[in-house]
């Protein structure tokens, strides 16, 4: 039996006229009436080795938590086996970025409580940590992606109290991204790949971010509940 638990989320996302929590929740409800059958039963078949990230805001927070799991693993390794040619300034700021990611990860974990996904195995093989270019390129890639993820997820929260929280974190990710880009290639806090001709950073859908993040996560995850 194929259950599409993402459909009610999609329904909301495509409505495009929601105005706040209340309207969103109303539309969720109204969508159920209009779609007559979009609201599905709670039974779900998840293979035993696959982790389900949850529904609604829980799924969204778990999604950000996943990103932070990758980032903390990345910077822990980058600090433990720093690249050749690391300057004193770079050493300090590399440790700072690790510590910021820990703060983000542990806060999200605390918020999630026992709904946090666990036993997630990350895969850092895209990076050669002894190599400066590889480390900084991947740091910039992950931070740029995190910015796009945080910017793209805010609109989906039912509890809008999370919007400001993710915004506070998003601009720090942007600081990280620009820093890694800039020490890799001077005078490039951004380029046309991440900031468009309207001066807007990227905002990516959770599904698009998960696709980009997949090489970094080994654990099988069921994230069909995330907005597309």
């Amino acid at each position, binding site marked *: 039996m194929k259950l599409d638990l993402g459909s009610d989320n999609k329904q909301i996302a495509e409505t495009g006229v929601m105005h706040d929590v*209340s309207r969103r929740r109303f539309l969720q409800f109204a969508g159920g009436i209009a779609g007559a059958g979009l609201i599905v039963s709670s039974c779900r078949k998840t293979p035993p080795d696959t982790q389900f990230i949850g529904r609604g805001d829980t799924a969204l927070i778990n999604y950000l938590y996943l990103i932070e799991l990758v980032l903390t693993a990345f910077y822990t390794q980058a600090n433990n086996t720093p690249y050749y040619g690391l300057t004193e300034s770079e050493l300090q700021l590399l440790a700072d970025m690790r510590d910021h990611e820990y703060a983000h990860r*542990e806060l999200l974990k605390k918020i999630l409580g026992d709904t946090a996904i666990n036993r997630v195995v990350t895969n850092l093989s895209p990076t050669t940590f002894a190599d400066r270019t590889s480390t900084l390129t991947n740091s910039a890639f992950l931070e740029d992606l995190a910015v796009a993820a945080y910017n793209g997820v805010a609109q989906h929260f039912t509890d809008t109290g999370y919007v400001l929280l993710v915004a506070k974190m998003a601009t720090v990710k*942007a600081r990280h991204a620009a820093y890694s880009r800039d020490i890799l290639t001077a005078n490039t806090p951004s380029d046309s790949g991440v900031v468009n001709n309207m001066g807007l950073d990227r905002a990516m859908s959770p599904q698009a971010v998960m696709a980009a993040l997949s090489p970094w996560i080994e654990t099988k995850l069921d994230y069909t509940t995330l907005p597309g």
Partner: protein
Amino acid sequence: MNFNHILQEIEKADPEVYEKVSGRRNILKSFGSKVALAALPIALGSMFKKAYGKTTGTVISTLQFALELEYLEYNFYHTGYNTGSNTTASLIPANDRPGFAIIESEEKMHINFLRTTIDTLGAVPFTPNGYTGDPITGNPYSPASYDFTAHGAFTTFSNYGSFLDLAAALEDTGIRAYQGQLPNLLANTNGVLTSAMQIASVEGRHASFVRLVRRFYNTPTFQYGNKPWITTNFPPSVPLQPNYMGEDNTVQKGVDITSLTGFTGYITPAAASEAFDEPMDEATVRSLIASFKL
């Protein structure tokens, strides 16, 4: 279809809904048996327009405020970039000019984006005092509108260090201002919530760039305390301290970040403050930029 049930659900979602329309009784009266089932969606639509439609005014005034800040930033960078540029001694040294050129062009894009969005929402975009150009298509450079020395208090365009100090403060404050305005944009009308976040993160990139330049400016190695992120409420210079009040907050969503475990022991207050930028309300932001406006 049980209409009462729908009303109950709305009520649950938004307890104040009846203050926004005209009382439950009136809704029931207007939606009573007289309303044909086919007309129900239209009736519901008009009810919600009444309840939530007026937020457009707040959205527009919020975007106008953002536009005002973008004008200020663009004029600051445009003036700085062109100070002394036709002589051998430009304010911004050759090594840093490409980065500042990117920042200036992105601030201009923000102006254009906000102008267009405000125009689309049916309002006339903000223009600074003394601006004479077209509010939507005019050149946003408006030297008659600003005094970035704050009447001689800062050596903004005669000393690169001062220019960097103020640049960092304007970017950091810009980020805080956007975050302070997000509660007005939660409805995401025309995608403005997402757009505001997309702009704020570009300001985050700018702040990081400026701060990194400052870190290495005029010192043999680097200034240990000056980082691309804001540490506690540490300002670039003493007169800019008011721009950083509240940045040392370490409590997020009721959780004290310093009570959480980091890589080594508890997360330090410094890291806890650096990891989150903090919102600032409009009145405070306005008071901070007032001395630069003419």
